[in-house]
């Protein structure tokens, strides 16, 4: 058994570096206020900016979205609300969530 005193699980060092790079790159895009990467168990791998303490929901949303799209785990989820917009997608088991100001557009 391993113990954890935070919500983050520890990825291998080079994976951690590449995740951090991806998050920093996304944070640099206009309108982006927060970026989070979580694993299949909803544990946070990397987080930057203004991200709510709801990492489990980030993983759960892409899991449920896949069921609505014929079990296609590459389904992208877009959530619109009054004061923010959230984009989620899963790749190789890692779900990335990008939190943006409303009306923001992501090109890549």
């Amino acid at each position, binding site marked *: 058994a391993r113990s954890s*005193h935070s*919500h983050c699980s520890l990825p291998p060092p080079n994976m951690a570096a590449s995740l951090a790079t991806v998050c920093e790159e996304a944070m640099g895009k206009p309108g982006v206020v927060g970026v989070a990467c979580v694993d299949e168990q*909803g544990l946070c791998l990397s987080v930057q900016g203004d991200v709510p303490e709801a990492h*489990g929901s980030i*993983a759960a949303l892409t*899991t449920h979205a896949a069921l609505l799209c014929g079990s296609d785990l590459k389904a992208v989820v877009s959530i619109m609300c009054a004061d923010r917009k959230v984009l989620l997608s899963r790749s190789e088991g890692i779900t990335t969530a990008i939190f943006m100001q409303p009306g923001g557009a992501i090109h890549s």
Partner: protein
Amino acid sequence: QTEQKNMSTNAANAPSLTAVLQSLHELKVMLVCDHEGVVLLRAGDEVFEPALQRMAVVFAQTTEQANKLGLGRNKYVVAFHESSVFVNVSLSPLVLTLMADAGANLGLLLDALPRLCSALEPMQHSFENFTNAHQ
């Protein structure tokens, strides 16, 4: 798919705790024990209860020692086993134990901890007062 979780409790705020537990679809067992493993609150499959009671006793001692590491108060410990995952939460003098299958969305359980602890706070304080009054 959602199992009806049976509650044995005298806590005044049981309904809100029930609501939180029922929102955690992958949670199999919840147990609240004192530091000697006496069960105060249970929900879910009782088959695992004896093992979880022993785990709670061990955790009560573990968290007490962990508090002395100079890292601040130990909040909770996650134990990953082959077929299950356990979250032991310190609600001194009580222990909250959650059990789910190995591949469960652990993040959702951890996200719910503040709500669970908040719902159990009255019981925690009542037990603390009761223990202090009878020492």
